[in-house]
């Protein structure tokens, strides 16, 4: 977009700058990777190097077998999967209405999405905690899934409704003329056309729940229920300084699912976001 009058000098400068960005963005990741392959002796050595001199998989073995990391990962998997399914199931019909009716409800709905960003979580979590305690849903995965669903819904509604808008109404009108019911239209016509949007929604909700920390910290007490981020944070507190290797390994393992899924959806995610933003 910006073409310099002195191309070669400018190009060199641009590459130098790009190199700086690459280093800034990549070096903490490389260091995490490096520590995760180091043995205990190398970790306390005075002059650490970025390439492990004696690479070992011991840290990964420990991450999977000790400290209940695997158990927490299974908890996270369960919570994130349920959140993804429930959020999409509930969000799809609502997003359809928001996209197709440009009324008061849509405007209030979208206004709420923006407004809700402004409020610190502490204002929501205390009453939510009191409410869930009365329903005996604190310290349970059911309560956590409900909270995650509500937390992910605004953004997901925003995204899904922009996908619905991209489906021409003529198709629906033709189906109505042929005598199809609303449910038949939703299930038979809209849902298949929305398939990419639905996949993005599912994965996004999954990643959101998989990564979440604050609600889990407040709501979960029983050790056997802890999700992965919570487990890792406890790990830092107790043994983090002593056992850096297993900590790095489990942190990396915890990132892999979200990183993989995110790679799949990031293109769609940004497009859905932007087209929604432009069309408001």
């Amino acid at each position, binding site marked *: 977009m910006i*073409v310099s009058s002195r191309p070669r000098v400018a190009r060199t400068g641009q590459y130098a700058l790009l190199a700086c*960005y690459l280093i800034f963005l990549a070096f903490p990741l490389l260091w995490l990777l490096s520590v995760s392959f180091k043995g205990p002796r190398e970790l306390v050595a005075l002059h650490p190097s970025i390439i492990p001199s004696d690479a070992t998989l011991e840290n990964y073995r420990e991450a999977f077998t000790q400290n209940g990391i695997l158990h927490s990962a299974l908890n996270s998997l369960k919570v994130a999967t349920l959140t993804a399914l429930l959020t999409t199931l509930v969000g799809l019909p609502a997003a359809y209405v928001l996209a197709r009716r440009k009324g008061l*409800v849509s405007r209030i709905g979208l206004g709420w999405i923006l407004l809700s960003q402004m409020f610190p979580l502490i204002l929501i979590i205390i009453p939510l905690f009191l409410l869930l305690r009365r329903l005996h849903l604190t310290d349970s995965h059911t309560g956590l899934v409900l909270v995650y669903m509500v937390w992910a819904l605004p953004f997901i509604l925003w995204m899904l409704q922009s996908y619905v808008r991209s489906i021409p109404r003529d198709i629906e009108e033709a189906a109505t003329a042929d005598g199809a019911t609303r449910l038949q239209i939703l299930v038979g016509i809209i849902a298949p056309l929305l398939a990419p949007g639905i996949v993005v929604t599912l994965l996004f909700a999954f990643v959101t729940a998989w990564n979440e*920390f604050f609600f889990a910290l407040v709501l979960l007490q029983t050790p056997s229920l802890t999700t*992965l981020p919570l487990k890792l944070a406890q790990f830092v507190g107790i043994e*983090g300084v002593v056992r850096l290797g297993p900590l790095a390994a489990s942190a990396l393992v915890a*990132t892999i699912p979200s990183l993989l899924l995110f790679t799949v959806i990031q293109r769609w995610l940004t497009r859905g976001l932007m087209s929604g933003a432009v069309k408001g």
Partner: protein
Amino acid sequence: MSVASGARRFPFRSRGRAGAGISGAEAALLLIPALLPILLLSVAPLVRGIYLGFTDSRAGFGVHTHFIGLDNFRALVHDQLFIDSFKIGLIWAGSVTAIQFVLALGLSLLLTQPLRLRWLARALALVPWAMPSVVVGIMWKLVFQPQAGVLNELLRRGHLPGSEIDWLANFSWALPAVILVGVWAGMPQTTVALLAGLQGIRDELHEAAAVDGATTFQRFRTITLPQLRPVILAITSLDFIWNFNSFGLVYVLTEGGPAGKTQLPMLFAYNQGFKYGAFGYASALGDAMVVVIAVVLAFYLWGRLKETA
């Protein structure tokens, strides 16, 4: 693939065709499964949370809650910890947002250039978005480790000062250190937004200016920046809000220490609410956070909009 282009091919034509024939009852039926949970578990708690700031609510069963008017806020004004934590919050949110904006603007301008390895920078810039904030915290803790960390090792090898510092436990360096992590963690959202804004600027504008003999910098100042203005205002405002309200990252890095030097408002409120059980006081802190955010944004947006007028 073609979701966005599909949207362009089939524009939202007439307002007249009322909702492709969705009746009010049908619409309500389809909305309720999403709307009811949002009302019950998000809107209602929020309203109650705002109200709790005016009560003496405490954790524990069977405790009676009384309306106490502005007492919490009177106590806040005299609470040095509150004043410190909000100061830290403003420094943190302001610096992270500003640095992030400058870095993301530079990166997104670079990414519009036909450079090799551009794909790698693009991919790397998105990685923090996918990472759990707890993992980002752990990763940077490893970087900042006083003996085994990579930062101090690089300083030692370069014979630079500071290689003895325990960054996250140092009274003067802990806050700058967590700000650096905040910048790293928030790069994706800002870069993506600015990149989308840049791609929305029509090439003809630049071409016309180039024909008129405008230099690169002149074109940046007179075309790119003004065209990007709405995106810049939106993303910096959002970044500020997100940063001021952030919790997980700093909780893992320092837990607010050393001696409260990195105690962001949310960490302070969390401790008040869930360590000491002072639900009313913690909610009052939340109310104060909303007021601070609203005031800062009002000044910021007002100042920016006046510039254009």
